[in-house]
């Protein structure tokens, strides 16, 4: 039945095969990179945890030894207490804050929202420093501690306070989203049956927001459990697992115990991630396309009380940030309050960290640039190309993995995997490159999800149409996908930049003296008693993050305005 026409190669076949190869090749490349820079380091932790120092397999002996040690009993309980208390403080505060913004008629909602998000711009150590200024041995509010029967801010009280501040914006963001989704029809139905306000709150609002509440609790708990900076600065003698790991790996070069503690940290993080994942899946089913968004109506008493709460919270947050900033500009807190820039100059120089800020800028810049490009193209490859179907679930799993892995654990994985003479990639160890790569991997999941969400909003048939018009997919990617998603790409870059500026948990295991970054130098400065210089460094980070964030937002706004013509109004 074959004809001559059948045997002739189809028109343009070779060109399109090259195209198909490019589409698959990108996916393979992404998959390989995620395996080398994520899966293998994590696997190394597993391996090292069941080996002795000589590399011989010892089964669970390392675990047995660590579980039997008094250090574990103490740090384990301490870590859970710290994370539990932080969650109990943060989530209700964040809920009321988010409720005030989404479900009341208080004025200046945008302002309150932005104030609540400020801590994201700061390293978590900044809050710890501020609470030392406020409640420390020379703190001007130290007397307040006495009212609550607390002897010193160092230890659990300071840690919980600082961590509540640091995790507050993350909880607020989740709850803002959780409370944004509500069907006005439910409230109208309740009104038609003359339901009192408190009953509507208990039967409609809370159940509707419960997934958001659980999700926020999980995120705050995980952040606290693997937090390094806060306990390091304000923890005093209160030992937690995160500090133990650091001491074992960096202090004693005991990689086996470090690996064991890393795995122990991973368990609650994985559990929280799993719960959050289940909960989020349920959240999706809550609203249908037919739902009508809820718009709050004024209620004088409720609105006034919520406004008071929001003002108090905002003032507290500004106080915490402001305290550290002020501290960086005074000579000797609290004895000599005259203005000085010395901490920014001689302070850094004296401690030998004057290159740290520049390093941070280099790190954050590369993370923003490379991270945005890799994440967006990676998301495009996994969402919009065809072929290599077997690889897609693997890529998806790998892309989501960093979200479940605390930075400290990833850091240990890197040190175990790359600081190994037999690894050809070992040359990366101690370079800026590895700091960039580890930071991109650490923040990959959220960026990937952001990119995927943006891509999913594009018509799925763009690629099909281009193929039918014989336009290769990369041309459509460049002419259509990138321009449409440019605001999202910028946002991903900003996210990487700010996180690279503030993060400490991964890089603390991987830096060399010449690649020390600003966040690590805060810890170093505080360790050597230079609290004011530490505040100066934290202030520099906040200021830089703020400038970059405002700059990006302005650029996004300009982009949206200049593309108003085709984005239309309703889309």
């Amino acid at each position: 039945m074959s004809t001559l026409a059948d045997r002739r190669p189809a028109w343009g076949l070779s060109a399109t095969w090259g195209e198909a190869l490019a589409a698959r090749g990108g996916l393979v490349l992404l998959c390989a990179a995620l395996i080398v820079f994520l899966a293998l380091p994590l696997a190394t932790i597993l391996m090292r945890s069941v080996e002795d120092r000589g590399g011989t397999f010892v089964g669970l002996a390392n675990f047995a030894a660590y579980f039997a040690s008094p250090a574990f009993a103490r740090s384990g309980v301490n870590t859970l207490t710290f994370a539990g208390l932080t969650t109990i403080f943060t989530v209700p505060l964040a809920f009321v804050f988010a409720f005030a913004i989404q479900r009341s008629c208080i004025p200046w909602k945008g302002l309150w929202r932005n104030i609540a998000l400020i801590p994201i711009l700061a390293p978590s150590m900044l809050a710890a420093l501020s609470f030392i200024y406020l409640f420390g041995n020379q703190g001007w509010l130290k007397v307040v501690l006495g009212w609550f029967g607390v002897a010193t801010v160092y230890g659990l009280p300071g840690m919980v306070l600082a961590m509540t501040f640091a995790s507050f914006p993350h909880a607020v963001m989740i709850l803002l989203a959780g409370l944004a989704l509500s069907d006005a029809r439910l409230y109208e139905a309740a009104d038609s049956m003359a339901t009192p306000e408190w009953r509507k709150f208990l039967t409609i609002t809370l159940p509707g927001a419960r997934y958001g509440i659980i999700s926020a609790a999980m995120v705050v708990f995980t952040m606290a459990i693997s937090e390094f900076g806060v306990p390091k600065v304000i923890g005093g003698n209160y030992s937690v697992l995160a500090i133990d790991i650091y001491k074992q790996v960096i202090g004693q070069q005991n990689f086996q115990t470090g690996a064991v503690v890393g795995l122990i940290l991973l368990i609650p993080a994985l559990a929280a991630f799993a719960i959050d994942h289940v909960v989020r899946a349920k959240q999706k089913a809550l609203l249908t396309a037919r739902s009508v968004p809820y718009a709050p109506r004024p209620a004088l008493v409720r609105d006034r009380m919520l406004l008071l709460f929001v003002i108090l919270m905002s003032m507290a947050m500004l106080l915490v940030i402001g305290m550290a900033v002020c501290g960086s500009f005074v000579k000797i807190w609290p004895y000599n309050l005259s203005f000085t820039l010395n901490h920014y100059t001689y302070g850094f120089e004296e401690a030998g960290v004057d290159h740290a800020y520049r390093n941070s800028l280099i790190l954050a810049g590369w993370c923003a640039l490379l991270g945005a490009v890799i994440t967006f193209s990676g998301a495009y490859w996994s969402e919009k190309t065809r072929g290599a179907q077997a690889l897609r679930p693997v890529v998806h799993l790998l892309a989501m993995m960093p979200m479940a892995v605390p930075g400290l654990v990833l850091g240990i994985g890197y040190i175990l995997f790359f600081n190994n003479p037999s690894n050809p990639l070992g040359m990366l160890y101690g370079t800026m490159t590895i700091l960039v790569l580890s930071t991109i991997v650490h923040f990959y999941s959220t960026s990937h999800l952001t990119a995927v969400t943006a891509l999913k909003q594009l018509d799925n048939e763009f690629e099909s149409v281009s193929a039918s018009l014989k336009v290769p997919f990369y041309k459509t990617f460049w002419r259509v996908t990138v321009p449409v998603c440019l605001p999202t790409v910028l946002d991903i870059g900003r996210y990487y930049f700010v996180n690279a500026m503030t993060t400490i948990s991964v890089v603390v295991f991987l830096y060399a003296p010449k690649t020390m970054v600003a966040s690590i130098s805060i810890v170093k400065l505080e360790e050597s008693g230079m609290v004011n210089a530490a505040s100066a460094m934290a202030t520099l980070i906040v200021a830089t993050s703020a400038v970059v964030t405002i700059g990006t937002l302005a650029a996004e706004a300009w982009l949206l305005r200049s593309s108003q013509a085709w984005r239309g109004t309703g889309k």
Partner: protein
Amino acid sequence: MASASESGPAPDALRLEGIHKVFGNFVALQSIDLAIHPGELVCFLGPSGCGKTTLLRIIAGLETQTRGRVIQNGRDVSSAPPAARDYGIVFQSYALFPNLTIRANVAYGLVNRRKAKAEIDARVRELLTLVGLPDAGPKYPSQMSGGQQQRVALARALATSPSLLLLDEPLSALDAKERERLRGEIRQLQRRLRVTTVMVTHDQEEALSMSDRVIVMNQGTIEQVGTPLEAYERPATPFVADFLGKVNVLKAVCLGEGRYRVGSVELVTEANGIAPGETVRLYLRPEDRVLADSGPVEQMPNALAGIVRRLDFLGTYFLASFDVDGFDGQRLLVYFSLNQALELGVHEGARVGFALRGERVRVFAGAE
């Protein structure tokens, strides 16, 4: 076969041979064979999940068939990627590039062929005029209505003069008025350009009014291929009879020579070789009723009488549900126009006589 192109008939514009598609355990398409002639418009019609969209996507190369061959203009494109095939496609969602002007959208496939700018501009103008939007060039898709966007998508698909046009539920996203208008325009355009067209739709009215032939599909198989009138008047299977328009299904017993007993009433239709005593189902459309003004109904073959139990007003006509004398409770739906209902005194509770068109009755074996 090489000589066929010289002496024999022109090859089919598109030939599907034994197309089979399996998703996991789900069989989406079962050995589909189909030939589409040059210049005709065929509709894949069927309920959602019948495999019609999958079949279209296989023709486009957007899905890969598990087995079978796709032959376009005599060329086997079974394993060719989409870009190596020759077709234009229009989707339900329009899929216009939002950041490009209408002109750039229509020119999208032309630019890639390295044509001169003046040539491209002329072609774009020609196409936009063809779809009735000569001045839309500088606009963006978001500034146009759904119907206008779909016209642009059509222009874009036709820009490269493909030999085959694929339409995937092109009218489903539009409102009723716009849908009806565009239906006529697409058909006119297709006739003028004589471009072979395959359209997927679940809307039977759309399929019947637009296509040269309909391909009625169900559960991954083709139930019937035929002109719209054939499929409607002489449905090949109970599914087709049921899917296209309204139909009465009456349980009956064959008496031989085209005579059937429903309850205690005897109906006469064309003989079709079914053995006496066999249980069958008679399929009969509500409009297959002899008009009363062609003579006294009582003396006609298949004359019936019954009481109107329910009367639904459907706009242009009434649908009466009859309790027919001797039918043993099997209800019969019959259409009456507004005037007929008035003249014959059709109202709920009324007793009305009428006769059925025996030659229109379709007989299918089996009781279920």
